[in-house]
């Protein structure tokens, strides 16, 4: 059987990668993201942003009059950096924790179980929203990094518990016993016996997690919790929180209002989030089939 999932996943992933890395140099992309809120198409005519999809703006424009397609392409880099940083940090913490708890008893196993239980008893979005609204994080100069760290850590328990359970099942296989019998040192055991066997499922779960993070970032943006923000003065004694980054989450933040007046503003960034989630999931499934190709 051919692995269609992997094939489609790789095509979609290379499509996204192309726009992420070379998008800024494409002729139809405005890398400067300049925009005019009011344009005068002819004598006596005035048009104000947001502009609907047209020849000039293939996907329409946002409320600043910036081309939505350019915004999406330029923002892809920020979005993917965000998603991958979160997932990579999560796995860097979770893999050692999961491997250390492979006996299913002892301190690390206990830690993984509690970490998972503590954060999986309330919706992740509820917990993250509560923590991200803590005042010292609100205007911290490194809020971006703190946010990434927090979103990554909240779900470490779930990931490390999965790894722990798989490592535990593995620890009862004969080749592990053989390794112990011929006197392989514990560290070597982890690196060359456990890790290579766990790698396939870790890679698969990595991509599925990336899809979940993409959805979570979208959800956080919908409820107006931003990853990076600044305080901007708008009037005498009045300031406003403004999101300065151009990631896809920023674009859908006013979905509730835009759905009536300018549907294209939330629609296309959301479509981009959906497509990247589909890509991550399909890649995960394709890789799973690829790794299991000998057993089927």
């Amino acid at each position, binding site marked *: 059987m051919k692995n269609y999932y992997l094939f489609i996943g790789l095509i979609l992933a290379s499509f996204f990668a192309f726009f992420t890395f070379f998008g800024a140099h494409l002729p139809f992309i405005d890398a400067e993201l300049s925009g005019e809120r009011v344009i005068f198409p002819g004598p006596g005519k005035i048009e104000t942003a947001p502009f609907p999809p047209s020849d000039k703006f293939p996907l329409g424009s946002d409320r600043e009059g910036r081309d939505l397609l350019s915004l999406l392409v330029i923002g892809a880099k920020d979005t993917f950096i965000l998603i991958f940083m979160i997932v990579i940090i999560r796995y860097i913490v979770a893999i050692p924790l999961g491997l250390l708890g492979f006996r299913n008893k002892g301190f690390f196993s206990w830690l993984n179980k509690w970490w998972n*239980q*503590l954060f*999986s*008893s*309330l*919706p*992740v*979005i*509820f917990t993250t*929203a*509560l*923590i991200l*609204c*803590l*005042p*010292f994080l*609100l*205007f911290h100069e490194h809020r971006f990094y703190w946010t990434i760290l927090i979103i990554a850590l909240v779900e470490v328990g779930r990931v490390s518990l999965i790894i722990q359970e798989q490592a535990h099942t593995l620890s009862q296989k004969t080749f592990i016993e053989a390794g112990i019998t011929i006197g392989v040192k514990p560290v070597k055991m982890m690196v060359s016996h456990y890790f290579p066997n766990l790698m396939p499922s870790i890679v698969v779960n990595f991509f599925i997690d990336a*899809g979940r993070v993409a*959805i979570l970032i*979208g*959800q956080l943006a*919908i*409820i*107006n*919790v931003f990853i990076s923000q600044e*305080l901007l*003065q*708008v009037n*005498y*004694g*009045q*300031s*406003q*929180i*403004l999101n300065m980054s151009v990631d896809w989450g920023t674009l*859908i933040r006013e*979905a*509730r209002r835009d*759905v*009536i007046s300018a*549907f294209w503003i*939330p*629609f296309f960034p*959301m*479509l981009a*989030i*959906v497509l990247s*989630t*589909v890509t*991550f*999931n*399909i890649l995960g*499934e394709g890789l799973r089939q690829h790794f299991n190709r000998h057993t089927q």
Partner: protein
Amino acid sequence: MDITRTVMKNLFLYTIIIVALLLIVLFPRNPAMSVSGKALTVEMEYHFSWKEYKNNVIQYLQHVWKEKSLGETRHERVMVEDEIMRFLPNSLKIILPAFFISLLFGIWKGIFDYKNRRNKKNIFGNGLTWILQSIPDFFIVICLQWLVIFTFPSLKLFSQTNWYGFIIPAILVSVYPMMYMARITSAALSNEDGQYYIQVAKAKGFPMAIVTTRHILRNSLQSILPHITSLMIHTLSSLLIVEYLIGYEGLAYRLFTALGFTTSFNMGSFRGFEPGVIIGIGLCFLSLVILAQLTGFIIKRSLRLP
């Protein structure tokens, strides 16, 4: 003995979660706001003090103890309990149908996926499950809203004034959890592949449909049922988004009001953060999760699973 142990362990767990919730919510959240310069630029400073933190926690606990109430809200003489009594029924109307729909249909869809994993219907089986799980709830909600507003404006699907106002939100909320359940179920069913009892049942001449539901499903329920709490969690997180986007007046909607997410600041005032309401709603969510756990336990008992 085993049951007592499980109950004690869970009680301990939920106590810790409640304590963690209290500690996060009661964290001092008042930055010092000041204005400076001709333009009255708002400046925020935040200094964390353990004393304030301790005060917050002690005062809150004393209040709970004395008044037998979870706290006050932004409205005068309206206690947290009153608000919850007002908003909880609206949310329950969504949560309970959505939860049971996603449980039953999710398992059914999982069986369908498992049965058709090797033929052409797989596109509607695993394929559809894949696609629906990759589409975030907010995308479905926004698209549906737009469709309804611009194509059938006479349909008041999202209005809460109609008795059927909860049906569409309930269906929207149940999509993601249902697909989650379907994947768990089909994975659990595939895990039983090649067991001898399946061959024995087949050899006795039972049709495959009966073998799947009576034998394989029964055995794999053992590994499906522990996921029932996650199912409730997924239902609740969809609820948060759906209620917020539709503007459905339920617990989740009240939660966002209580979190005080406004993006603009005036001098002098900070967000209307209502710790009592957040704690109350958190407790509601937690009890729903416990309810889900109990449902799982009851199903397990009534089917006499080991």
